[in-house]
């Protein structure tokens, strides 16, 4: 078992050697976010010197909210960057080895197609998002520290409460991301499918079939069900049945902003149907790589 673990770890490491953007992009952007406040101009916080005017209780709430807001900002930024890196990675994941003719080298080693494909899938769905989350967990406290150093008059707000508020937000963000990983898994599998099939320009293989079908539907049926379906899948919060509980301040990502009703969302049929479709596509990808070579 440990043998198998180290093998899988090796396969995952190999992906990060080849696709350095997967770990460098979150680190660089995270680094910039830490340095930015130090370079920033003489920004005034809205309430001026809050610690003097407000009572202790409201200052605590404000600093907590400040921590939450920065953590959400940091995770959204790093999450977006990670998504971009993963998108590029997926298109390249099973195409580059044929383009650079190294596929026969990889296939000369005792690594099955299933192991190869599943390692790449794990990099896209688990390891890279987790890494971005980890970077966020480090970056947000550093940003808080940088702001504390830079803006003396706001130190009453940017304190331990802000750190705590930020870190308390992290598990909630993790749940959002877990949901996102499951929800978007069909897209991930689709991009891998395009990558394994592509003779050149995998992006074309990913975009052409749905684009063609949408166009045909529009021309012959004068409807746009497919475009709507894909659109809603890409942006599930636009769906009419999106379970959003804006009234629950406790579970809210931001107090007063509310949050999705996870109980409803995680038991949603279309979430798991998507996961099943993704699994079927991944199986197909494994089968297709079986007889892929450098020709």
């Amino acid at each position, binding site marked *: 078992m440990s043998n198998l673990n180290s093998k899988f770890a090796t396969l995952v490491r190999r992906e990060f*050697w080849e696709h350095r953007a997967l770990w460098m992009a979150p680190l660089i952007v995270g680094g910039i976010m830490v340095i930015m406040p130090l370079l920033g101009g003489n920004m005034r916080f809205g309430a001026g010197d809050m610690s003097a005017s407000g009572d202790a209780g409201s200052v605590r709430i404000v600093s907590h909210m400040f921590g939450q807001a920065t953590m959400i900002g940091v995770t959204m930024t790093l999450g977006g960057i990670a998504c971009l890196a993963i998108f590029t990675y997926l298109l390249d994941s099973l195409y580059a080895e044929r383009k650079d003719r190294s596929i026969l080298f990889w296939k000369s080693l005792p690594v099955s197609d299933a192991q190869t494909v599943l390692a790449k899938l794990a990099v896209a769905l688990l390891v890279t998002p987790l890494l971005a989350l980890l970077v966020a967990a480090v970056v947000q406290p550093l940003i808080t520290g940088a702001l504390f150093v830079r803006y003396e008059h706001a130190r009453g707000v940017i304190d331990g409460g802000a750190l705590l508020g930020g870190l308390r937000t992290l598990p909630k963000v993790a749940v959002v991301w877990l949901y996102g990983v499951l929800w978007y898994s069909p897209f991930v599998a689709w991009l891998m499918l395009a990558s394994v099939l592509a003779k050149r320009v995998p992006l074309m293989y990913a975009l052409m079939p749905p684009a063609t079908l949408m166009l045909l539907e529009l021309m012959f049926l004068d409807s746009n069900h497919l475009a709507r379906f894909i659109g809603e899948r890409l942006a599930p919060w636009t769906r009419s049945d999106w379970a959003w509980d804006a009234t629950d301040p406790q579970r809210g990502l931001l107090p007063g902003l509310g949050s999705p009703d996870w109980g409803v969302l995680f038991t949603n049929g279309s979430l798991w149907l998507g996961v099943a479709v993704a699994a079927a596509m991944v199986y197909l990808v494994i089968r297709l790589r079986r007889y892929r070579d450098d020709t």
Partner: protein
Amino acid sequence: MTAIIEARGLTKRYGRKKEAVAGLDFSVGPGRIVGLIGRNGAGKTTVIKSVLGLTPYEGHLNVLGRNPATERDALMREVSFIADVAVLPKWLRVRDALAYVQGVHPAFNRDRAEAFLAATDVKLTHKVKELSKGMVTQLHLALVLAIRARLLVLDEPTLGLDLLVRRRFYDTLLNDYMDEERTILVTTHQVEEIEYLLTDVMFIEQGKLVLNTPIEQIGERYAQLIVGPSQLEAARSFKPFSERTVFGRTALFFEGAPREELARLGELGTPSVADLFVARMQEAA
């Protein structure tokens, strides 16, 4: 003696009709170095890819007691394979290449690979894209030599490399890799370069084996006779299967002809594998 590779009626069709490989029967024993020799498109690579389970095929194929079509993953623990020694992923760092093979191959000896590399110009911190073709070849050799594989399959491994690199590659294989438990199957169309290291040759033409023999039996089966114009007609009466005239002297190639009688007509010898190959191909044409 159990065969390392056993093929019966090995066939590969592209589309409905065209047979890239047409019913091959052959067997490769342990400790042999077999050259699969043929022109471009003769079916060499198809045979190799079938043996490695890289392509579907028809017929029966057994490699190290396994079926390559269904047991590829297990098979690759005991088989090493080099398609092109000068090709490794450009972004790969030498140190990471060693770590990778160590991580996925149970029979890889990293110390051995590092010891081999220490004698070359390849540094552990180099990336493949920084290496010359000769150095990539060295790295490839370091990886393969450090794997205790029973069968090494080489498919046109030295294509596009200069003579020095090619010669060093094959010499290293002979000196550091071969022993009586190891077997090599190598394809090439540069016959003359590897014939000195082969124990067996198989000629393949249009998907069929036109010759399959141990090297030492070539002298018993085949003869090459060089004669002047005066003896040409007499020599032709022994029915050569091929002949070639250079500077007025003619080399004739015979299979199973009486050697003593031929020897009276001119210079009798054993054809080189390269000459035999050319003669066979001319006959087929």
